[in-house]
């Protein structure tokens, strides 16, 4: 019982055979070898697997690959352009927005969605909007600092 899915991932058209039960995150990691999207809890709590589907942040462990058929998916690997980090990635680097780094891809993907909703986010808005992202190192302070800085660069 396999089916073909086609979608655009990081600007590239991809197509592969999957089982209907294949999760989007498995498709990204196992079929496309895009292992930047992490599986932390696998129960939709932690947000390490956050990617954008048609421009909106979603948890890739709670969506089927077949549900992303025909859509545009953006993962952490798709952010940097010509070897230049995305401003949000650069801000996380500059402000030490990571400790072990496991939650970072999801944090960065959520952060970019936060800036879309709140171009000039307050600390409270950031903390509220990070509800779905957990950092087991509890490094939230610098994550919030990074997002404030990343948002500023993104505003230009």
């Amino acid at each position: 019982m396999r089916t073909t899915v086609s979608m655009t991932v990081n600007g590239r058209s991809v197509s592969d055979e999957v089982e209907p039960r294949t999760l989007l995150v498995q498709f990204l990691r196992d079929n496309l070898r895009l292992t930047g999207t992490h599986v932390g809890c696998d129960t939709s709590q932690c947000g390490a697997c956050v990617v954008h589907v048609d421009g909106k942040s979603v948890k890739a462990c709670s969506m089927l690959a077949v549900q992303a058929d025909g859509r545009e998916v953006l993962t952490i690997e798709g952010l940097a352009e010509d070897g230049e980090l995305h401003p949000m990635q650069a801000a996380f680097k500059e402000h030490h927005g990571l400790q072990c780094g496991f939650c970072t891809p999801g944090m960065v993907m959520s952060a970019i969605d936060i800036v879309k909703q709140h171009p000039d986010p307050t600390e409270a808005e950031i903390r509220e909007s990070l509800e779905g992202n957990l950092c087991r190192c509890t490094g939230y302070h610098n994550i919030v600092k990074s997002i404030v800085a990343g948002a500023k660069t993104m505003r230009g």
Partner: protein
Amino acid sequence: MYNFAYHRPDSVDAAKSVFSGGDDPKFVAGGMTLIPTMKQRLAAPSDLIDLDGIGALKGIKAEADKIVVGAMTTHADVAASPEIRKAIPALAKLVEAIGDPQVRNRGTIGGSIANNDPAADYPAALVGLGATVVTDRRQLAAEDFFTGLFETALEPDELITEVSFPIPEAAGYAKFANPASRYAIVGVFVARTGGGVRVAVTGAGPCVFRVPEMEKALASSFSADAVKDIKVSDSDFNSDIHASAPYRAHLVTVMARRAVEAAQ
């Protein structure tokens, strides 16, 4: 997750026809509860019928005296709707506090109410506002729709198409959220309408319910003071690691007071 056949019909009729041909079929809306449940193998449908391809089930319509929300409209779209923020700001606020942004980008009103989680927010809004649930075959008052713990009046093959919210004179919602999941440990929705005052409680018991004593008190004086001393009985209330039944009963009064204070 056990395997299944995946279907993505583009109309309600097509969805029902796939359903009738399935061995143990299930509709999926946003999948924010069903997919995790399937991953735990607590649900194993033979056929998963994805309603996301049915455009007719999406969207928000503002009419003179009501707001109609399509069953497949996401929480994010309801929260951001200028019509809802203007006509029923309490509803937008309630939806804004469901889960997290990623859940709100996928989760839908139809999926949430069909699941009828005892700690979900939407049931309080529907019963509090006296909403009507419209299905492919009938219209149900919200109170008749929610029948018990994870139970609704829906027939197995019945599909919710939209929810119609009458616009209240004023409404407010207050919830004491579980700090981890944001589900309501207790949530109280209060609405003042032309037909009287309605108070609906979620999270406290096995299913959303109204509090007639508070409604009566608020009908004569719509103020926080009117409900601050009204206690509810905790018999049949939920009791778990997060809150005991007596504590939940206490929270009903506190949240009712805050909901009235927040009403606009």
